[in-house]
């Protein structure tokens, strides 16, 4: 129903998922994912459009806590686990280019 999975499809999904996979890994994953998806496609045999999708067993909606101040985690404790803490912030590679 959705066509055979090709290596280019797998490469596209890896990019969406932010997984840096090399050609050998893509080649190994493609038949595995194709087999799993072809098994999973059985769901198309029974569920009709008029059946409401179920996303949660209890159907709780709009669960909000009371709007009162409460202590959270201390910034120092949280930053202690970060790979690159910088001046009370999370360090990352540059994401904005300087003007040329």
């Amino acid at each position, binding site marked *: 129903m959705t066509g055979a999975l090709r290596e280019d499809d797998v490469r596209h999904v890896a990019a969406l998922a932010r997984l840096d996979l090399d050609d050998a890994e893509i080649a190994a994953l493609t038949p595995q994912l194709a087999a799993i998806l072809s098994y999973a*496609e059985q769901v198309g045999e029974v569920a009709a459009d008029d059946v409401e999708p179920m996303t949660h067993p209890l159907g709780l909606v709009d669960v909000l806590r009371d709007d009162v101040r409460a202590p959270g985690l201390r910034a120092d404790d949280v930053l202690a686990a970060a790979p690159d803490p910088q001046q009370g912030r999370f360090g990352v590679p540059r994401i904005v280019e300087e003007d040329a």
Partner: protein
Amino acid sequence: MSDAALTGMGAAALADALRAREVSTREVVDAHLDRIARHDGVDADGDVWHARPSEELGRDEVHAFLVVTAGSARAHADDIDRRRVAGEDLAPLAGVPLALKDVLTMRGVPTTCGSRMLEGWVPPYDATVTRWLREADVVVLGKTNMDEFAMGSSTENSAFGPTRNPWDLDRVPGGSSGGSAAAVAAGMAPLAIGTDTGGSIRQPAAFTGIVGAKPTYGAVSRHGLVAFASSLDQAGPFARDVTDTALLQMVLQGHDPHDATSDPMPRADLLATLRDGVAGLRIGVVEELESAGCEPGVRTVFLDAIATLERLGATIERVSLPHAPYGLPAYYLVAPAEASSNLARFDGVRYGLRVDAPSAEAMNAASRAAGFGPEVRRRIMIGTHALSSGYVDAYYLQAARVRTLIARDYASAFAHVDVLVSPTTPTVPFRLGERTDDPLAMYRSDVATVPASLAGIPALSVPAGTAEAEDGSGPLPVGLQIMAPLREDARNYRVAFALEQALRLDPDPGAHGGPRALPLARPQGGAG
């Protein structure tokens, strides 16, 4: 009391002995730590013991624990003993040791989720489950091995090497909570916490001959439980008997404002109806799950268990859940879809592994490829694909519609019967390495457990007997799965208790003649 006596005792018996001051908490904790030191493959040195690298583990070492918090366990034990001597009124399970699956946070203790991605991460907060255990004075001995991010059915997907099954050290303990189940079966802890997304408590309980319960979705807080599939994940108890399992679930369950999916309804008393028996109860045998590729040995044990329940006065009916066969394909879309979203948080920025690269995106992708093992990558890829533009309707939404059909099947069935039963797993525990090259074969271990997960209903596995593997080796444990309507967890415990009392199975893996079993330390004459 000897160490061997203490590590063979259940939680309720230990709690009684502690209350009567026949033994101190410190003695109980030290006896269990000693058993871990002798049989688990840890470097038992100092306050925090680490598991040795998997390539250095012996064929007879269980590898249930990733880290053993010996120092804090002893300190907690001494504190409980001081307060008991001072006459303080203590909680029912005060002083009983427990093993905690390494997917739940404990402040100051590394949480890895069985992954290189989180190796070395020390969480800055306690999971609600951890906090409530502490408040109940249950003593945490350490964190247990698991399939990476709880994705697996054998514990072989752990980045730190597999756990071995105490019934046959060449076989898997099931998964993903295999370390917790093996710790209990091996007498290293009388109680353990697992988490169950598609069967990760029930399947390892069945494979290790113990009791394991997946509570109703929302009964136990998920705050501090590293998320795999949020609409399915549920923490729950393991123990060697039904009463201990119920006592532990009583500690875990309750509404938690820190978890938006926590059920606000009051929790049932699981002990009040425990001994009511099954006379007059209507028990439904699920046709689709009974015939789902069961080994003959498993089927025989299952039919014998049904006959026992009938002899005890239950009415047995055959019940159809017509959409149950679609549970497994639906599960392997819904769970990976939620996982792909949840695991997006591991981006090399706030915690976990980072692999440096010139751009932020390249750093994300390099870190994730380096940190996640093969099964986690597969599930992220399946989930990302199932949610991607052009495919979301055919895959994710279609699976979510199947979920509705399965929930309706259960509702129809529970209009006629009080509980439903099936074999917990279609096979006895398989050999280490037997299914690691075939993801779909591994997934099929969960065929009987995923339908209840998708519906959110409570389900429990209780030992039903032993069977030989198809190659004639064994005997190996077989579990009976019992399922009840939402919030009716007490019914599962009631049926399980009746079966347990009738069968009187020996939980000692060494008592059944398997040549590669690790005998459970038994109470000596006069003790316990």
